[in-house]
């Protein structure tokens, strides 16, 4: 393919700038504004979900429970789980980072269908509002998985829950579709598949999963809705239905969903490591293809959530083995990241700290996942706090750590200002220590036999529950520092300039924050961006300096002997 810059070709023209507050900031079709809208909305939901989590931890300080009735407790943990999965992690990773970063990294001016993108976004806050309104009529109380027959007997809020999750599911499907077309069709000239960044690779795998798997969830939710509202028997065993059917349909979505929640985080880590180790990424192709392999395998393992639900023993074996095989592509990534760090000149920024922390916590959660894939272990640990510990190590220690790393890494690109590294390091250490203190004891509680989803518990479990609750406040303070850091930085943070980290991917070649049209001319791409020893592999870049005084160019702190 010809790789020449082509300023002024037909179709290479720039949209007129949007005018007026509404078109600019509310019903904007600019992928960057929509990305920020996802971050802000997701951040609000994150605060709500965090407060619900603290309510859970406060309740469990005393064996007889402290603040909530058992019924209210069920509602609180169900909404906490649903919010974190569908209203925080998935929208922030795919909608937030996916929208803001992905089009910039492929050298595009926007996503393929900007109007659809706006529609997808606006379904998200609406879905959130609907979900939280379920507290008015009685919150759903069967956990985020809402297994029938409990969900069939649940309070009216369960119906509200199905509507909210259905909406967010449609939004995810549309975003996935939009992004697949964008990544397949709108990459800058010369950007072949093996020249895409690893975040884009991860986003591609995620978008395909979002598009395909989420539709299965929509079907399951629709059936649950019909059964609850019109009494149509799908899941009620008394009328020929099957509760196991829900589990199949739900997990056919929700197992891929755990990779929807972690693959973009893998992508973020893959950007942060080479940048702050100042080394080419190790095993570029292996990291890229392992994302695709994980996505494929994730569709074949859903029944490992159902070992205790009653399934044919011969069927358990293939699900157990395929589940364990997923550890292989994941291990390929972990070892490639470690090899990237090896011999690198590591710059311990906050983004890098979170990525390093991610390696520790996610690997831990991954290993307990391999434990749980083994049928005999799962039969013992299923429905205990061991599961709660495991899932928080992968979702908080994996996805949320990835999100935090990404926020510290790309905040300068999004706002043009640097976050405070000092507050950032406090943020990291409080969060990291608090996180491990909160969730590590849960593994022991689980092995001692404490069941999950209970508002009261046997007094012999009290010590580790109190440890967990105490550390959860440390974690909360750490997260509070993130919001404080952002608030301070937005008011008086240092100007970052276009490329404060000396990173090499396309988004750092334009000013921060990028202009609404992103690239004045679409650049041509010669190589993948991770070869630190070589000049930037782009042709036809037309860097625009933002108005105002010139900003300092990048210097590695170790080169000038500077400290943070």
């Amino acid at each position, binding site marked *: 393919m010809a790789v020449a810059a082509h300023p002024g070709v037909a179709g290479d023209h720039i949209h007129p700038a949007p005018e007026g507050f509404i078109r600019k900031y509310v019903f904007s079709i600019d992928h960057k504004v929509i990305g920020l809208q996802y971050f802000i909305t997701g951040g609000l939901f994150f605060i709500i979900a965090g407060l619900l989590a603290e309510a859970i931890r406060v309740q469990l300080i005393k064996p007889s429970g402290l603040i909530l009735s058992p019924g209210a407790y069920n509602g609180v943990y169900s909404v906490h789980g649903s919010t974190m999965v569908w209203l925080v992690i998935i929208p922030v990773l795919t909608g937030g980072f996916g929208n803001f970063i992905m089009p910039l990294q492929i050298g595009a001016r*926007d996503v393929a269908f900007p109007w659809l993108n706006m529609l997808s976004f606006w379904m998200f806050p609406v879905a959130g509002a609907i979900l939280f309104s379920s507290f008015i009529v009685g919150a759903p109380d069967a956990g985020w998985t809402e297994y029938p027959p409990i969900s069939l007997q649940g309070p009216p809020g369960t119906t509200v829950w199905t509507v909210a999750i259905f909406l967010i599911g449609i939004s995810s499907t549309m975003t996935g579709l939009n992004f697949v077309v964008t990544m397949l069709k709108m990459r*800058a000239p010369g950007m072949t598949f093996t020249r895409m960044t690893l975040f884009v690779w991860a986003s591609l795998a995620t978008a395909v999963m979002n598009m*395909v798997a989420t*539709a299965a969830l929509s079907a399951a939710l629709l059936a649950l809705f019909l059964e609850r509202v019109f009494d*149509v028997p799908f899941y009620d065993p008394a*009328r*020929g239905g099957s509760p196991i059917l829900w589990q199949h349909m739900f997990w056919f979505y929700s197992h891929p969903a755990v990779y929807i929640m972690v693959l973009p985080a893998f992508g973020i880590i893959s950007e942060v490591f080479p940048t702050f180790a100042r080394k080419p990424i190790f095993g570029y192709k292996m990291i890229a293809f392992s994302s695709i392999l994980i996505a494929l395998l994730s569709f074949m393992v859903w029944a490992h959530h159902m070992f205790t639900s009653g399934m044919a023993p011969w069927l358990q074996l293939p699900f157990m083995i395929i589940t364990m095989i997923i550890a292989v592509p994941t291990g390929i990534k972990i070892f490639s990241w470690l090899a990237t760090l090896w011999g690198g000149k590591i710059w311990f920024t906050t983004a890098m700290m979170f990525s390093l922390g991610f390696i520790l916590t996610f690997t831990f959660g991954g290993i307990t996942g391999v434990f749980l894939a083994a049928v005999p272990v799962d039969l013992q640990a299923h429905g205990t706090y061991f599961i709660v510990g495991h899932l928080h190590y992968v979702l908080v220690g994996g996805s949320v750590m990835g999100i935090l790393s990404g926020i510290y890494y790309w905040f300068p690109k999004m706002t043009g200002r640097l976050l405070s590294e000092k507050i950032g390091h406090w943020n990291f250490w409080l969060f990291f220590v608090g996180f491990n203190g909160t969730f590590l004891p849960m593994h022991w509680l689980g092995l001692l036999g404490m069941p999950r989803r209970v508002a009261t518990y046997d007094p012999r479990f009290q010590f580790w529950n109190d440890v967990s609750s105490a550390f959860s406040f440390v974690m909360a303070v750490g997260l509070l520092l993130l919001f404080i850091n952002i608030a301070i930085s937005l008011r008086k943070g240092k100007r970052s300039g276009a490329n404060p980290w000396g990173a090499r991917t396309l988004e750092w070649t334009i000013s921060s924050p990028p202009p609404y049209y992103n690239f004045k001319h679409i650049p041509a791409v010669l190589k993948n961006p991770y070869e630190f020893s070589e000049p930037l592999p782009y042709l036809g870049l037309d860097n625009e300096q933002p108005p105002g005084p010139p900003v300092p160019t990048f210097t590695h702190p170790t080169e000038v002997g500077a400290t943070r």
Partner: protein
Amino acid sequence: MAVGTLGAGTLSGSHDEVVARYNDVDQAYAEQRENRLLGFVLFLVSDVVIFSSFIFAYLYLRSSVPNWPPIAAGGHQLPRFDVAFAGVNSVVLFGSGATMHFALENWKHQKKGRFNGWLIATIVLGAGFLLGQAYEYHSVQLAWSGSTMGATFFTLTGMHGFHVFVGVVYLITLLIQANRGVYTSSKYFGLTAGTLYWHFVDVIWVALFYLFYLM
């Protein structure tokens, strides 16, 4: 119509090839058309997943009872469906797939009179299928909420019927737009999408007809 983004067309050949394929169309339109076509196909893929999930539910529930049609909660044996009537109705729908194909082909050759005729035939056949389905719903001895058979039958065929209904409305819109000059001999993405959608609805019905009436 023009978009602000210049795609590379990396999947579908080089820049020049893309232009050559649509040499009578301007390049921005050609690229936008490719994006929309892929997007539309992906939308249909996700729709297939929704139907497949319900088909999975049907097969799962069907395989969990010893006999099908099952015995309803009240103890009476549920009836088999009337294959003959549904067969005739299916022929009506499949026929509309053929007429839609002729409509699009005639548009490509700019034979507008024939295009209108075939498209109107498609709309009439589609509406006829819906009427047939309404008659069947009315006459079948089965309730939506009475049994898993009723649940899966009415949900799946109802979802399909909804798709046919949306399709008929869409085709009417296309008929109006085409006659108001919205489409030209080289720019007619709406008609392509409408034809794709209509064939998709046909294909889904092939599966449903087999699963409910023949199996």
